[in-house]
């Protein structure tokens, strides 16, 4: 089947198998920031925005995205600013988890989260094998302009 979706404001058309997963289709289209980790919805690495809301792209059939808008880290204006903070704080080690974390954190900024505890709870689904999270939390504190 042929689907048409908007990825980072660019219209893409592609032939897919009806049972194909969004993550795989995005990678076929060249959006390599979208990566596979657990493949069960648990690690957050494959997160994209679906009509503006974060979802794990490993858990959605690509056919659902027909006619919808997808944003990957390549299409986020604020991504570079947060990525810079991650690297300054030593929170970008292997970097495999970064795209998912960046997408969710930028979304949290958009919805006005300024409380670090709230941010931590919202980011519980973004697993990282390298950093131990402390350095990520320092970067998140700066990026969100945390007030408490």
């Amino acid at each position, binding site marked *: 089947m042929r689907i048409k979706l908007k990825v980072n404001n660019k219209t893409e058309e592609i032939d897919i198998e009806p049972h194909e997963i969004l993550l795989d289709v995005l990678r076929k289209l060249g959006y390599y920031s979208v990566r596979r980790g657990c493949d069960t919805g648990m690690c957050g690495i494959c997160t994209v925005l679906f009509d503006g809301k974060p979802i794990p792209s490993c*858990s959605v059939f690509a056919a659902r995205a027909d006619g919808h808008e997808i944003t990957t880290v390549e299409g986020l204006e604020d991504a570079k600013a947060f990525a810079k903070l991650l690297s300054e704080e030593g929170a970008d080690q292997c970097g495999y988890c970064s795209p998912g974390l960046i997408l*969710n954190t930028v979304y949290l900024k958009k919805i006005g989260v300024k409380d670090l505890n709230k941010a931590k709870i919202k980011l519980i689904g973004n697993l990282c094998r390298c950093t131990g999270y402390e350095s990520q939390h320092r970067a998140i504190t700066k990026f969100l302009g945390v007030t408490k």
Partner: protein
Amino acid sequence: MIYFKEYLKPKNLQEAYEVLTSKNAKIIGGATFLKLSNQSFETAIDLIDAKLDFIRESENEIEIGAMVTLSEFGDNPIISNLYNGFLKNITENILSFQMRNLITVGGTIFPKFGFSDLITGLLVLETEVHLYKNGKIRLEDFLNTKIQKDILEKITIKKKPLAVSFKNIKNSEYDFSIINIAVSKSENEVKIAVGARPAMAVLITKDLNFFEDIDKAVESLLNKIKFSDDLRASKIYRQKVCKALLKRALREVIQ
């Protein structure tokens, strides 16, 4: 791996039901659980365009469409304020924020998942399940039916003056509950639901008088609830934890 040949997004339930009953087809809610299964069928019926993402409030009840996601339980003021955030507090501890943006009410209730925290919470409220073909059924009755070929359209929750409490325990914040319990108290009745036993949740209703001595009441109730072993916990562990959680929840709503 999951395999199917056709993906449809019907605009209404009539269309969806026709496909469900005329082909080897499955309904897609959020796809989060279905996607993990190993099966093949002919047609996937995604309800995303079937206009089932509504939340409505009338004088006596709240209606929640089958495609409402668990995130909406926190974001929507009608649900998030209900019984001081009872359902919001239950759902915001299920998995992660991004998964809750996908997981639907229909996909949680229709398969009658034993581990479900939401089903346990809904059981102690007056919840009815509305099915396209089989009509309106009380949630506790629905859990005992063998209905398979139908579509959950919405649930309704009656607004009643209730005191409520939910408790659960997990090995880690991100895991399934080892045991979950919910309790509600109306003027003269107490409802207790116990889920993740690990089997499907059960509901017990008793007169308020029964709880004059809470310790004794809990001992007698525990004899009526069946627990079993699984990877997460033993039957005995579940029984002991359930006893402690039940006493806490009952004290919260009764005293």
